[in-house]
């Protein structure tokens, strides 16, 4: 095999990285280069481009190498895959990152890697890239490092010193699926590693509360990813797993990644069209848990056979099966009640609460404060509007459901 040029390596190692959904560059510190170095983070994150798959391109997302000694059946880089292999040197990644950054293509780097030789060796290589960027080049942009669960805690410590975010993927919603689909990975060590990260993040927060210059540790926290549709897990299991992860490990995000066709598939895991609508509904359910005050039991309770309704969003679905709580008076209801009205987002609710201090809202006011009145109207009353009997109408669900309910095949029927 001849030497690959850097353009070919880039093509291979970006292709190998694209199944990781995370591209966030938000959260964490605010920094800039006024006092030296290059780069900044505003806490907001910037999406510098979008690919035709609708995904944002915020970071240079790469694998250091797609050589891997693990054999995870869903993964394009597994040892038994026959894809082309490549390996960047840490210096090559640093060079690309800085050059892209200077041209304002990216917010920073998201670096991951196939496991080569050993978890420690691999982690060391990742940390080396981040260290070069920070220490040699004064890079102040965003760095997200994938964390190898079994790596030496001293290496994780170093990773947290340089990176804004660390992530360990739980990979699959069901622990037992890992045994079958990713035999070299161990769900328990993944959980333990996430738990260890949370302890360290808490500690760092506490230290920085006491002394401003205490060393930082991954100020943008940790995140994880679950592949949806590669094992038989129902949405109810996925949502419960997420709640366990959010509550136990203080995760900033759980990413859901619809299992997507890969070149070079494994016989034991047939490919199919990725369940994109299912993935979307899971994100919406995730939002209900994190920002709308819904408990897991409430979200799961409005599912049918443990699956989210693909034709309507989970909040509407919940409201339709809990109609006795509606309609609610937008001029009086508490914030947490307003958040449960289908069609009212966090910002609309804030505006309503603010406005009703000075005026009584009419239906036309609500129309101006929301994107679409259609879903909201049956669930609220205003000074000049009450839905009357329509809230109980059997046809309500049908009226609020899009005509073409998106259909998707499931791998496990």
């Amino acid at each position, binding site marked *: 095999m001849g030497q690959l040029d850097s*353009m070919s390596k880039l*093509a291979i190692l*970006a292709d190998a990285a*694209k*199944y990781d959904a995370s591209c966030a560059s938000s959260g964490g510190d605010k920094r*800039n*280069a*006024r006092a*030296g*170095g*290059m780069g*900044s983070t*505003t806490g907001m994150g*910037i999406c*510098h*481009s*979008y*690919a*035709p*798959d*609708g*995904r944002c*391109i915020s970071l240079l997302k790469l694998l250091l190498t797609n050589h891997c000694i693990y054999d995870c059946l869903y993964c394009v880089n597994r*040892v*038994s895959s026959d894809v082309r292999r490549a390996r960047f040197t840490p210096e090559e990644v640093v060079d*690309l990152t800085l050059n*892209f950054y*200077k*041209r*304002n*293509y990216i917010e920073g780097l998201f670096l991951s890697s196939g496991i080569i030789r*050993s978890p420690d060796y691999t982690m060391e290589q990742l940390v080396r890239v981040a260290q070069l960027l920070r220490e040699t080049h004064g890079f102040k942009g965003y760095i997200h490092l994938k964390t190898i669960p079994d790596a030496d805690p001293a290496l994780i410590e170093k990773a947290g010193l340089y990176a804004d975010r660390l992530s360990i993927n739980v990979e699959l919603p069901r*622990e037992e699926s890992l045994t079958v689909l990713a035999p*070299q990975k161990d769900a*328990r060590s993944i959980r333990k590693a996430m*738990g260890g990260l*949370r302890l360290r993040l808490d500690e760092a927060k506490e230290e920085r509360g006491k002394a401003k210059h205490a060393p930082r540790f991954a100020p943008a926290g940790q995140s994880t990813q679950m592949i949806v549709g590669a094992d038989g897990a129902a949405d109810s299991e996925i949502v419960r797993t997420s709640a*366990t992860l*959010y*509550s*136990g490990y*203080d995760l900033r995000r759980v990413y859901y990644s*619809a299992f*997507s*066709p*890969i*070149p*070079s*598939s*494994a016989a034991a895991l047939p490919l199919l*069209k*990725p369940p994109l609508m299912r993935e979307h509904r899971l994100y919406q359910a995730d939002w209900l*848990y*994190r920002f709308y005050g819904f408990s897991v039991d409430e979200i799961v309770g409005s599912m049918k056979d443990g699956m989210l309704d693909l034709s309507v969003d989970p909040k509407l679905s919940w409201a339709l099966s809990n109609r006795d709580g509606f309609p609610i008076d937008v001029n009086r209801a508490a914030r947490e009640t307003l958040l449960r009205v289908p069609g009212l987002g966090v910002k609309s609710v804030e505006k309503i609460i*603010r*406005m009703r201090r*000075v*005026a009584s809202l009419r239906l036309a*006011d609500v129309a101006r*404060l929301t994107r679409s009145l259609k879903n909201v109207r049956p669930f609220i009353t205003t000074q000049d509007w009450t839905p009357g009997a329509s809230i109980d109408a059997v046809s309500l669900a049908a009226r609020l459901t899009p005509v073409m309910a998106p259909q998707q095949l499931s791998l496990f029927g």
Partner: protein
Amino acid sequence: MIRVDLAHAADFDGWREAARRLAIAGVAPADVIWQTPDGAQDLFAAPAQALPEAPEGEKGPRVPREFPDLARYVICHADPARFSLLYRLLLRLQDQPRLLDHATDDDVHLANAMAKAVSRERHKMTAFVRFREVASEDGEGAFVAWFEPEHHVVRLTAPFFRDRFANMRWSILTPDVCAHWDRKTLRFTEGVSRDQAPGADRLEDYWRTYYASIFNPARLKVATMKREMPVPYWKNLPESSLIPALIERAEGRATAMVDAAPTKAPKRSPKIVARTEAARTPKEAGVGLDGLRREAEGCKRCPLWANATQTVFGEGGAEAELLFVGEQPGDKEDLVGRPFVGPAGQMFDRALAEAGIARERAYVTNAVKHFKNEPRGKRRLHKSPNISEINACRWWLEKETALLKPRLAIALGASAVRSLTGETHAVTKVRGQVLSSPFAGDVFVTIHPSFILRLRETEDREREFAAFVADLTQARQIAYGR
């Protein structure tokens, strides 16, 4: 008519000073013409009067704190009516100081919408400006970008680029105004035409390669892309030339992947898998407490493992003579993997010391070895284990006890009593008594230290802590006769 000449299209300071004077003079919004250098001149307008001077010491209009922030954004909007809208709002705020709360008022709604459009455009500028490297006379190089914003956001956004690219020399050229940074000062000059900007950069092929490779053809979502990266921006994005072909070929590529037969593993792969497996095969489980601990790592005797991080096994030397049994690990213990390391554990350690019990004489464990909890937002709420969970986990406690053969078991709280004796007792009734366990012999009963932590009043806590220490002292005396 009064004509106000502003210095540039987003001249907030000029607007503010003029608006102040106009408001003091009581000029109606309809009687003001706001003129910017780039705006069309109304040649037939009545001769304009000069801006009235404000009398000395006159304070001028008062506004809520958020109005200047709103106005700074609205003023960057492309709509020529923005200046009069803001002036009208300024006057209305004098009579209705809480007008901005009224989000559906026509003026407020329009101003909010304009500010939002500007904010979005500012954000898009931070995202979509693409620098190209050019040679400079001193050989150091500089970076130049061409951008065509929909609103007047260059001055608003330039500080972002200054703070980020402080060590580069850069210029952002636009038809309206250009921003320049020489590593020391930010300057603005008049707009230029596109041909003043460089046409290519050596990194753009790499960037396009990255863009094409990171795209997943199996998840085509063109509408989402266009919503977030509207087509008008495409003309200045080097990657956009690839988009039509990527879309066109996507479905074929995705179908081909699904249809392709599974591939055969490369020859070297079984060997690598075998080597990896060999490296991670667990060492011998071992004997004694260590062996037991390792065995318990994978425990699924009850469903509690699913929500917990790990089994939290007992801790202490094999020669320990006192067996302390708590309820279950808490949040901290679950993360660390060791019993009694959280707040209750620290209190327990303190009480142990005061009761004169050396730590190495004690073995501490729990009736239930996984953390039972309920996810609630970002936290886990402790839930007490039920009888079937306690019964399931007694398996381990019996084995721990059999290996330790303690002089005395000490039950900390009701769950421990239940586990050790198999009976349900109210701790308040049997506290300080010695009960009997079918597998652990004598069981001395006291409270769980977390009970003390839950007390609100300091004096209650101090009293209960002292009582707890007294209990432990009594247990020591029972075990050792002194």
